[in-house]
């Protein structure tokens, strides 16, 4: 029997007291699509960084096609034939595709252009080599990243949550590409926490929990329930059935909003109309980069409308278009932004001080001074009630994993007891256990009469949460679709720019 392509034995890595990986064994076979499955914080990213040489292990050995492998640096990894596509793309928006690729691959522009076209044809990665990156969709950008990796003829390609940015139709297309790559002799390490995807495409799955391997299975032989149990170590709670509600007060209403941002790369919004009522969840679907962040900033008040644009945004029946975030919060608005570090939280500050950021009106101040005892008690409550895994409230926000910080921020905003809660990407990078807890919490709040607006890229999430879904595409919102009467494919069509079928509606 031939040795596996990549073989890890006893790989361990600690960051201070946190054991991110403990005694990991992993065998990746030649010509296989191998899933690394696990919750956030289970150690998937750490393991990938070790394999790609971004970080070095404390202990353990690696072999590559039977030979010892040094896990020294990304350059070394690339030389051996290991490529990686990160979750967050690293492309220069103002350069063309081929210019971006020339930054890492030597060669003449004409030759590279030709190779990009060939790779595109062979593997279903069509993209115009001469297009500027800022003009490309997210799916196309991902193809550029994959092509850039393929240029160095890798034997192993690591993809970090590649489907999280794609609409359903494009996921199928990516899978087709991955199968062709496998058949062409490239093994793939596929990181995900989406069980159905892994069952659809992977030959093998290694499951991580709390830094250890808890399973090594053929995913096609297990159902999603089994895999989830291996991943979170207990049974998944059943989703709460959403009872339809109607007739609550309008807590947020946007009427005919047009907005052209100052930033030339930002997406202009056109004719935005939406209504969120008390006791209702409205979901905004769509692939990131279609105006989500621009719309979010307009709702939160981080972008204010000019004095001439009256009666466009109403919160709790008041025109708030010209008000800043603090004034909107004072009316009962709370907001969880999609970027946690640097926006939803200050990385260098403790959780106590990060609680203060928006929760200071909850009597955390005394005569203009910070009431340390109250602020600490607030952070402790939030940590306990929202299951934030951290050594304590004095921990810096930047030291928390993305999922745990998200739980803290969501908890902080919910503890404000708002009338209108706006959550952008509620479970981005959050493990399924925590994600389902956050979703159940949102549904419970809705049932208690809160108006909730959710922006999410994950359709399954919106179908679980939202009473109504609107799709954002190129800065325009689709008409509201009642979730119970809508199929995912219909939403998917809007996500790729379909016009409403009834023009007169």
């Amino acid at each position: 029997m031939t040795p596996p392509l990549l073989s890890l034995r006893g790989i361990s890595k600690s960051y201070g007291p946190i054991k991110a990986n403990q005694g990991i064994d992993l065998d990746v076979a030649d010509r296989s699509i191998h899933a690394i499955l696990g919750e956030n914080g289970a150690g998937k990213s750490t393991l990938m960084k070790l394999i790609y040489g971004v970080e070095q292990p404390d202990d353990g050995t690696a072999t590559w096609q039977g030979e010892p492998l040094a896990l020294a640096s990304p350059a070394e990894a690339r030389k051996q034939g290991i490529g990686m596509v990160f979750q967050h793309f690293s492309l220069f928006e103002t350069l063309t595709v081929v210019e971006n690729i020339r930054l890492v691959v030597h060669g003449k522009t004409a030759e590279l252009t030709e190779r990009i076209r060939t790779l595109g044809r062979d593997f279903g990665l069509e993209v115009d080599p001469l297009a500027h990156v800022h003009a490309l969709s997210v799916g196309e950008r991902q193809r550029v990243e994959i092509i850039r990796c393929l240029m160095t003829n890798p034997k192993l390609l690591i993809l970090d949550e590649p489907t999280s940015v794609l609409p359903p139709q494009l996921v199928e297309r990516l899978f087709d590409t991955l199968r062709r790559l496998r058949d062409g002799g490239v093994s793939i390490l596929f990181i995900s926490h989406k069980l159905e995807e892994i069952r659809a495409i992977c030959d093998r799955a290694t499951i991580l929990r709390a830094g250890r391997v808890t399973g090594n299975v053929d995913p096609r032989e297990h159902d999603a329930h089994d895999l989830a149990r291996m991943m979170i170590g207990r049974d998944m709670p059943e989703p709460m059935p959403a009872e339809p509600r109607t007739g609550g007060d309008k807590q947020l209403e946007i009427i005919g909003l047009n907005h052209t941002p100052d930033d030339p790369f930002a997406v202009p919004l056109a004719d935005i109309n939406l209504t969120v009522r008390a006791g209702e969840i409205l979901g905004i679907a769509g692939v990131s980069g279609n105006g989500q962040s621009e719309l979010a900033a307009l709702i939160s008040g981080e972008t204010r409308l000019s004095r001439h644009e009256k009666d466009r945004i109403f919160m709790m029946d008041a025109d708030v278009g010209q008000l800043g975030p603090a004034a909107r919060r004072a009316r009962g608005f709370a907001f969880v932004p999609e970027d946690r570090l640097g926006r939803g939280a200050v990385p260098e500050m403790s959780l106590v001080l990060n609680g203060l950021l928006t929760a200071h009106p909850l009597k955390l101040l005394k005569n203009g001074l910070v009431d340390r005892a109250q602020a600490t008690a607030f952070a402790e409550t939030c940590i306990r009630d929202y299951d934030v895994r951290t050594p304590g409230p004095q921990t810096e926000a930047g030291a928390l994993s993305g999922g745990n910080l998200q739980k803290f921020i969501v908890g902080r905003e919910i503890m404000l007891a708002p009338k209108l809660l706006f959550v952008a990407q509620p479970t981005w990078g959050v493990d399924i256990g925590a994600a389902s807890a956050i979703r159940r919490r949102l549904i419970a709040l809705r049932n208690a009469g809160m108006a909730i607006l959710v922006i999410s890229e994950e359709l399954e999430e919106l179908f679980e949460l939202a009473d109504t879904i609107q799709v954002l595409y190129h800065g325009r919102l689709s008409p509201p679709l009642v979730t119970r009467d809508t199929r995912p494919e219909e939403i998917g069509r809007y996500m790729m720019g379909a016009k409403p079928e009834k023009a007169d509606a």
Partner: protein
Amino acid sequence: MSMTHFLPNLVRRERASRKAMLLAPPLALAAAILLNLALYVLMGRDPAAVVHAMLLEPFLSWSSFSEVLLKTGPLLLIAQGLAIGFRAKVFNIGAEGQFILGAIFASAIPIWFPQATGGWIWPSMLLLGAIGGALWAGITAFWRVRLNANEILVSLMLSLVAAQLLYYLLLGPWKDPNGFNFPQSVMFQYDAMVPTLFAGTRVNVSLLIAIVLSLAAWVFMQKSFMGYKLQVGGLAPRAAGYAGFSEGRAIWLSLLIGGFAAGLAGAAEVAGPLGQLQRSISTGYGYSAIIVAYLGGLHPIGIVVSALVMAAISIGGDNAMVSANLPIAAVRVFQGSLLLAYLVAVAFVRYRLEWPHTTARSQS
């Protein structure tokens, strides 16, 4: 290619190292001393004599130590004010000009009312000076908020304008008519002088004020919600925007506080050791205070220590100029290298060096 294999990498730490934070200032001081001693040897000076004159003499007699304390006052005041702005990432580099305006505003009282007497005079002068400094800094704040004009450039250039304003006053309307045409004002009356703290020295009550205001700065930055908002704005501007903390207010507050403190220092200088308005009212206090603020880690307590150290170096430098025949530029080089060494050292609070130990294995 091969060289890079032997050079260490700068790797970001998971969290800030408290040890590195506390060690950075003393290590930087030690490194700067060694570096400069080497320089003095190269210049053909006797390093032992320089060390004695520069680093020991200021502490060896009460009279020279009292001069250190005298210099500590303005450095402490200005640096505390600047540090508040720096933590909000509002870079007021024009404390020198705000200091000069403070001196001018304070001098207005004794120059216009040379006959006035009473205990109200020197406190009013300090207050007026502080207001003058704040107004001057307010010009910078206005343009920064209004037109997003870079506050570093505006405040720095306003310092040059302030110096010209001072020269104009001293050569024109405020020149002492009996001063043999020297560019200086009349000597101030007794009641325009800040009372001295210790008999026989020039140390005056303004040092106490500086210490009290240092405490106030500590409360403001470490305890108050306003100070917290400023720090959020400095550390993560987008988080401040998200929470609804006004950026414009942070800029105004930072600059007004900085200008107030620098103006107060300027007033205390003319109403203290100088006793009149003259051309050389500042020996670069406004610029040295920037170094003081950073050496103190922008922390109110740290700044108390660093102000004392910088004052001692300054007095020691004067000594060394006389007794070890050191040029004045050497003192400036010392201050500059101290800041540089500190900035290098402070990088290790959030970063650590990692040597490429794994490369040995890859060669097999």
